[in-house]
């Protein structure tokens, strides 16, 4: 069927604002980043074209140690998927059923999401403070002196300590999205299932969860790409330390760009992250389609 010209112009006009923003702010810098990733450039002088040398160095250099940063990011993504999302789903399912104090609980759970990352970071820095922080003070007061640690300063605990606030902050966000989805399930469906003798957990499993699949997909994409790109809280809490134990790709990228003046290598990490996130977004989409 041949579309009239007017129709095509309309399509273009509808896309125009989004495309203009998208291309100038996101796509153009990516293309530039890709070009920079093929150069040796300190950010100031003329970039020198070196082909894929940065990529080779990125994946082979022991001092950059990209595999550690990737491992940390994947671990965070995994924890998001096996702890944060299921817990958020559990909360959402619970709160969707008649329960006293629902409004208050919903509001409280969502509250950490509203607080600025800088504030959260500063707060948790204080919570983890080895001498005066609430965590160690609490442990000492209940006689668990030997469980106290220099949380963010100890190679063994820093990664876990840095992940806790990240996971904590966004439980409420995922919960609210899922809760909204569950509230959208037509009551006839659940009531019919109940009449058929389904238990609440069976209703959850066979009616509600399949119904809110699109929202779950959004949550999973958001959790995984968010983990791979995670930066702000780690930057405030540990900035990748101690001894690079909490390094993630974004902190490595920032240190390449702004500490080491290795603009080419920083761009290489950026390109790698983009490819990785895109791959996962496609993968998640495929998985959710498959199940349908």
């Amino acid at each position, binding site marked *: 069927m041949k579309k009239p010209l007017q129709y095509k112009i309309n399509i273009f006009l509808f896309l125009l604002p989004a495309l203009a923003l998208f291309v100038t702010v996101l796509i153009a810098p990516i293309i530039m980043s890709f070009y920079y990733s093929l150069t040796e450039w300190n950010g100031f002088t003329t970039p020198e074209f070196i082909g894929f040398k940065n990529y080779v160095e990125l994946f082979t250099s022991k001092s950059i140690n990209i595999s550690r940063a990737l491992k940390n990011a994947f671990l965070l993504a995994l924890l998001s998927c096996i702890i944060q999302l299921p817990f958020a789903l559990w909360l959402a399912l619970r709160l969707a059923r008649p329960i006293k104090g629902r409004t208050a609980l919903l509001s409280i*759970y*969502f509250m950490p999401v509203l607080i600025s990352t800088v504030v959260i970071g500063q707060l948790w820095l204080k919570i983890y403070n080895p001498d005066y922080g609430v965590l160690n*003070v609490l442990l000492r007061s209940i006689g668990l002196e030997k469980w106290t640690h220099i949380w963010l300063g100890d190679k063994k605990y820093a990664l876990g300590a840095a992940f806790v606030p990240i996971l904590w902050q966004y439980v409420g966000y995922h919960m609210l999205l899922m809760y909204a989805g569950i509230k959208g399930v037509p009551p006839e469906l659940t009531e019919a299932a109940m009449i058929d003798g389904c238990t609440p957990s069976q209703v959850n499993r066979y009616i509600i969860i399949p119904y809110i699949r699109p929202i779950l997909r959004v949550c999973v994409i958001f959790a995984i790409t968010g983990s791979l790109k995670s930066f702000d809280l780690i930057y405030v809490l540990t900035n990748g330390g101690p001894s690079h134990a909490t390094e993630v790709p974004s902190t490595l990228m920032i240190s390449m760009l702004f500490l080491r003046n290795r603009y080419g290598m920083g761009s290489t990490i950026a390109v790698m992250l983009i490819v990785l996130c895109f791959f996962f*977004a496609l993968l998640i989409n495929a998985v959710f389609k498959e199940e349908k």
Partner: protein
Amino acid sequence: MKKLGESKGKRVFVYVILILWALISIFPVYWMLTFSLKTNAEIFGENVAGLPREWVWSNYTRALNTGDMPRYFLNSLIVAVSTIVITLVAAVMATYAITRLRWKGRKRMNSFFMLGLTIPIHASIVPLYTTLAKIKLLDTLWALIIPYSAFSLAMGILVCTGFMGDIPYDLDEAAMLDGCSTWGIFFRVIAPLMKPAVATVGIYTFLQCWNELMFANVFINSDKWRTLPVGVQSLSGQYTTDWGPIGAALSIATIPTLIFYIFMSKKIQDSFVAGAVKG
């Protein structure tokens, strides 16, 4: 409503977990508010987590005097509101073209926009800086609004697609038979039905730009255009060991949002829910 197959013990257990998580969620905020009113002696020693014994309001005057907090707050608000409006308009329009208009390549266009979800915001800082400088927007609030809108767009489109995809296509066809043009359908049929998406996209966008630190620090020079995260960060750098004023600064940055949220939370949740019902 009937409660089937749930023993009393289990219900108590569920409540315990729900309340425990509520405490964990709220504790840092509670702690922040209390230590913002304490002296170091109380924070570091005898009274770590209790209510302040002596209410040190001077912490707040000290925090307020080390920068222009109200102004930073206003700037953040202007940036957030403008970003939300721009994101919404652009996202709803683009989603309409992608989901409801028939043309070759719309699937690909959607994937193209989804690329935005995958781009780490910090990677583009130098190319963006150059562009913003060239179009003379550096050191204005536009230097934040435009990038924030662009980075929120992908999520906006994703959410809108969910909402719009579930509006029955019969509506378009009926409208078309009534003689509505493409624009007519968009404005009279689709756009009004997208109201619920506003809350979801709005909240997401708000969070994205309310918290952002790196761009806000690099693209803004003048004190009069600084945003809240930059203000808070520099404030906490100034009182490193004097926790009271830091707590006060953190509270000043947080309290207005919390108040707004307390009044609006029902509404915010309702629109989330309403949105999902349509979805």
